[in-house]
């Protein structure tokens, strides 16, 4: 196998393992968050292999650098050391859900055996910041504006939600 293919499987295994690590780590939220970071980094590696360079960097910058740090920040702010909850009331339903999801994923993976075509060569500058930036500020400029508006709304919303009321 070529190097990229090997790397892909390495990253894929890492991503799955760390994702499972996040979901199954019942005791330690911080460890879960660190697993999430690992997933993000693995995915960024896969993005690089898929020649989506800007997306890969932004994945690390935003997900790794901002979003998960926020999670950690909140965990630390609330000082959540243990994650022990009283037994829930939906255990049977949850088991059913797990089985259902697994079945569906299995079915979905089975569909993938009719392989996708081999990707062709990419054009010059594909995935680089220059072309992507041009695309963002011409074809997708409305999207960018909408995103900015959304972020503004989120900032305001988060402030209103989280600010301490001063009586």
């Amino acid at each position, binding site marked *: 196998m070529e190097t990229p293919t090997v790397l892909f499987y390495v990253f894929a295994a890492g991503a799955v393992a760390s994702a499972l690590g996040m979901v199954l780590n019942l005791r330690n939220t911080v460890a879960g968050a660190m697993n999430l970071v690992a997933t993000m980094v693995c995915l960024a590696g896969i993005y690089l292999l898929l020649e989506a360079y800007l997306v890969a960097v932004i994945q690390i910058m935003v997900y790794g650098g901002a979003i998960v740090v926020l999670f950690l920040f909140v965990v630390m702010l609330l000082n959540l050391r243990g994650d022990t909850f009283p037994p829930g009331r939906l255990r049977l339903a949850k088991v059913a859900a797990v089985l*259902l*999801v697994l079945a569906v994923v299995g079915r979905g993976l089975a569909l993938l055996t009719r392989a996708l075509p081999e990707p062709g060569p990419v054009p010059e500058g594909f995935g680089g910041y220059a072309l992507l930036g041009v695309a963002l500020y011409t074809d997708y400029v409305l999207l960018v504006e909408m995103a900015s508006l959304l972020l503004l709304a989120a900032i305001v919303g988060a402030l209103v939600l989280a600010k301490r009321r001063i009586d």
Partner: protein
Amino acid sequence: MVNGATETELLRWIPLLPGLAAAVHGLTLGLLRRPLSRALTVALSCGSVILSFALACIAFWRLVQLPEGSRVLVDNFYTWIGAGVGSQVVSADMSFLVDPLSAVMSLVVTGVGSLIHVYSIGYMDEDHRADKGFQRFFCYLNLFTFAMLVLVLGDNLVLMFLGWEGVGLCSYLLIGFWYSDRWNAYCGSKAFLVNRIGDFGFLVGIFLLFSALVQAGTPAISFGEIERHFDAIASATLSLPGFLGGECRLVNLVGLCFFLGACGKSAQIPLHVWLPDAMAGPTPVSALIHAATMVTAGVYMVCRMSFLYAAAPEASAVVAWTGGLTALLAASIAVVQNDIKKVLAYSTVSQLGYMFLAAGSGAFGVAIFHLATHAFFKALLFLGSGAVILAMDHEQDIEKMGGLWRRIPQTHFVFLMGVLAISGFPLFSGFFSKDAILAAALAAPLPGHQWLYGLGVFTAAITSFYMFRLHFKTFAGECRAPAEVRDHMREPERVVVTPLWVLAFFSVFAGIAGLPQVWGDMIGVENSDSLGNFLAPVLAPGGGHHLEHSTEYLMAAAAIGMGLVGFGLAWLLYVRQPELPERLAAALARPRRLLLRKYWVDEAYDRLFVRPTVWLSEAVLYRGVDAGLIDRIGVEGTARAVRGAATHVLRRAHTGLAQSYVLLMIAGAIAIVGYLVR
């Protein structure tokens, strides 16, 4: 877009300047909730309108520089509404057009508008009512100027309609400017509603015309395009339901629809009822909107569509006859009015009737000529009456005036100039324009054109009579005002009087611009009708037969004679023998009552339209449909059904455990995806 037109970016600023000023006013009033300082308001408003006047002058100058055949300036600002594909593409552009017709109109609008803006500085400042809103007034006034200029300069029907509605709105706002008085607000609503009827007609006309053009395969909405493709639909017919007369020529129908719009805006029978009540607004408003500019929009529109009316003789006949009858009826009502502004209002209706008489007779240029002269002398008369009202401390009843010529001589003099002009005193502007109208009526290719001429001449006599009656009762004789008013009476300040002098100058001399050829021949001037010649390329040629010069001299003599009769009668009744009118009133009680009640038109409308509508709204629509159907069954019924379902069924699904909802959601998603993938 007109071929061979000269592009210029100048034109957009003519309407935009007042529009921006209005926007600034509106924003400061609406957002800051604190008026700007008086000086700033004045500078902004008057400055913008005067600048706009200057731009209009520049545009006019450039237009004149162009060779005669291609005197068209356009400014395609941006595409406002685009529609259609391929050969069917059509767009209503935010595009302004200055051709001779709109050049004259824009000069009148901005010129008279500037003077009235300046006049308003003084007039509104002396207004001491509780709800005075100096800046609000100027805001509306600017907005009006903007809308009027859009109407005049718009190069397509849609844009014209935009301005058309805009001026209607401003008219409403300004009539009800002192809205704390319910009567004013009522008058504003009345004007608005009556105008809506006309607007509806206009709109239907636009739709008819457009759909006909689309069916002919040449969709067009701008005037130039419509005119170019007009031949395709000139002979089209439209089948109407039987009770409406079956087959009908499309142009006639469109012409009538447009004329209905013009009736509403220009207060012609049967939609004339709003204009006298519109006098509830401040006097500058009456002068600007309800005398000089907005009410003439109908005339302008008919002239703008002159090619259509030229091809629709039946519609033209209706226009001419409506105009003639309106002229007569309004003049007759004016004879008995005692409110100084009401007299002028009816006089305006009457003069507008003259304009339509001319337009209907095919003499569109003459209509515009009279429009311009009327704008000057009627604005002068209104502003003069405003000065009188100011001097009389807001008294409008001429029964309580009299003898004012000694106390306010300047106002008296300019007012007299206006009276002479409107009465058709020889060599004054009104003389020439009215004479031209009468000549056009006599020469019109219409059934009963002699009768139309007779109507016009008779109306001229009445006009002269009521105008001199107004003048004598206001300025002559003894002062009947209360002592405290009489003693404090003085000439208004300079900012009020100066516009009057300017307008008086034009009232007297504006006739020269459109001196009919017959008088030109007399004094040896070639092509003396410079206005008519200037306008000729854009207006459809009138179809009337030519009149002999001798006939025209005779007609002029007749008109002068009629004017003198009216003057003499007024002099006899109100100066010579002031006790005679009362005796006459007693003797002619019934006709007088008919005139005082304005031929019972308002009452008839009230019975016929207003009350049934109110009843229908109240009993059927409100109690039946709204309260019964929508509220009881629709709103409350739905609520009850939902509540019932929720309490008995849906409550079970509400476990309060977020994850149970998540599970349901996942199940749903799996179901959907499963269905899609299968």
